[in-house]
C-alpha cells in the first residue's frame, strides 16, 4: 500500500452550472491515494460537499468496477452525496473487459468507420473564374482552362488538358497526384509544394497518352506516358 501523502491534486473538482460537481480523477495515481485525497478534501472543506450531486470523470483512467463501488460507497455513506454520472474517457477497453466478464462472452469493439467522401465529378470544362474544391478526389471530364482553380484533398484527374491551377493533397498529403491527358498548367501544387512549369515550346505536340504530376525527391515532377 502506498503511504505517500497526496501532495499533488489527485482529484480535480469543477463546478457545473447546474450545481453538480465534476470530479476528474488523476489517471496516474493509485486508487488508494485518490480515496485519501478525497477524505482530506472532506475534512478541509468543512463538509462543503455534503449531499452534493457528483459526476465522476475517469478521464484516461481505466474502468475498475471495484473502484467505482468503493467510491460510490464512500461518497454515499460519509458525504451523503450521490454519483449522478460516470464519464469514461477514451479507455473503453477496460470497460469492455469487465462487461465481457460479466456476461461470460468476449466482446469485440468494431471501430466506427468514417464514410469516405465521394469524389467530386465535374462534367464540363472548368473555365476561367471557376473554383472547384473537393474534400477527397476530384475528377474533371473536360479541360481546366487558364484562370480556373481545382483544389482537392487527394488526387486530381483531368480527362482533358490541364491549363489552369491545380492543387492536389491540399491538406498536406504529399502522396497525392495530378493526372491529366496533358499538363500545361499555369501552376501546380501538391501539398505545400508549388511548381511553375518551364515555358515550354509546344511540347504538347509530342505524342503522349497522359501525364502525371507527383512528388519525387521533395519536388513536383511531371512524367509523360
Amino acid at each position, binding site marked *: 500500500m502506498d503511504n505517500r501523502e497526496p501532495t499533488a491534486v489527485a482529484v480535480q473538482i469543477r463546478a457545473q452550472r447546474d450545481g453538480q460537481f465534476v470530479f476528474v480523477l488523476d489517471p496516474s495515481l493509485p486508487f488508494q491515494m485518490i480515496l485519501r485525497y478525497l477524505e482530506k478534501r472532506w475534512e478541509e472543506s468543512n463538509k462543503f460537499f455534503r449531499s452534493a450531486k457528483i459526476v465522476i470523470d475517469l478521464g484516461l483512467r481505466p474502468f475498475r468496477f471495484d473502484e467505482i463501488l468503493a467510491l460510490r460507497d464512500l461518497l454515499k455513506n460519509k458525504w451523503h452525496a450521490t454519483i449522478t454520472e460516470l464519464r469514461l474517457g477514451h479507455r473503453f477497453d477496460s470497460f469492455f473487459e469487465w462487461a465481457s466478464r460479466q456476461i461470460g462472452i468476449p466482446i469485440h469493439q468494431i471501430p466506427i468507420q468514417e464514410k469516405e467522401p465521394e469524389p467530386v465529378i465535374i462534367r*464540363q470544362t472548368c*473555365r*476561367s*473564374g*471557376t473554383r472547384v474544391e473537393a474534400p477527397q478526389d476530384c475528377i474533371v471530364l*473536360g479541360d481546366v482552362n487558364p*484562370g480556373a482553380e481545382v483544389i482537392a484533398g487527394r488526387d486530381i484527374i483531368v480527362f482533358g488538358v490541364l491549363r489552369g491551377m491545380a492543387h492536389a493533397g491540399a491538406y498536406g498529403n504529399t502522396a497525392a497526384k495530378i493526372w491529366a491527358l496533358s499538363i500545361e498548367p499555369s501552376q501546380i501544387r501538391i501539398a505545400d509544394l508549388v511548381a511553375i512549369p518551364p515555358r515550354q515550346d509546344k511540347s504538347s505536340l509530342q505524342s503522349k497518352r497522359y501525364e502525371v504530376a507527383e512528388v519525387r525527391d521533395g519536388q513536383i515532377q511531371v512524367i509523360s506516358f
Partner: protein
Amino acid sequence: MPGKTIVITSGKGGVGKTTTVANLGTALAMRGLSVVMIDADIGLRNLDVVMGLENRIVYNVVDVIEGRCRLEQAMIRDRKINSLYLIPAAQTRDKDSVMPEAMKRLCDQLAENFDYVLIDCPAGIEQGFRNAIAGAQKALIVTTPEVSAIRDADRVIGLLEANMLKDIHLIINRVNQKMIKRGDMMSTEDICSLLSIPLIGIIPESEEVVISTNRGVPLVHDRKSQVAAAFKRIAGRLEGENIPIPLDNHEGSLLSKVKKIFGAG
C-alpha cells in the same frame, strides 16, 4: 415568329465588340432583314459614333426604360439602310440606372417587330454585363488572338452558361495570318480548342477598320474589303447558310494532315 436577340460580348475591352455590332448589323440589314442595335454600354456610348449617327440622338435607352419617351422616338434609322435602327446608350448616366428585367422587356418588345436585335455589351462582368445578357437568346463572343482576351472570353462563356445562355458562338477578330504562319500568334485552332465553343467567323486584322470607324461608316459598305466579306459571311452563317470557315493550319506536319483526313485531328 419573333426575331433573334443576340448579345455581342467579350469580357475584355477593346477587342472589337462595337465594330462587330455595327458591321454585323449593317451586313444583316443589307440582306433585307430588319435589324435593331442596342448600345448597352451605358455611360460609355460609342456605337452611335461608329455608325455615324451621333448628331441624331435625342432620346436614349434609359429614356425608353424610364418611360420618358416612346420606343420609336429613341430608335434612330441608319443613314443608308432603311431597315437598320440604333437605340443609343445614355452618356450621362451609369450602368446601375437600368435593371436586367427592364432590359429583358425591351428586348422582347423589339424582337416582336425585328428579325434581329443586336445588343452591344459593355466590357467587364458587372451590372452592365448582366443587363446586356438579360434579354438575349444567343451570344457571340468576340476575342482576339491574345491570351488576355482569350482568358476573359473563357470567363464570360462560363458566366453565360451559368445564366442558362447556352447558344454561344465565337468570332476571332484581328487575325493576322502572316503572324500565325511565323508562329508569333496563337492559331485560330488553338483558340477554338481552348474555348471549346463553335466558331462562326474569323475577321482579319486591317487598317481599314480604324479608318471606317473614324469616318462613321461601317466597313461592310466597302465592296473590296476582306473584313467586309468576313462580316457578310458571318451574317450568312447566322441566317443558316453553310459557309465553310477557312482554318489556318500552316505549320501542320504531314502526320497531322493525315490525321485530319481521317477525322482524328
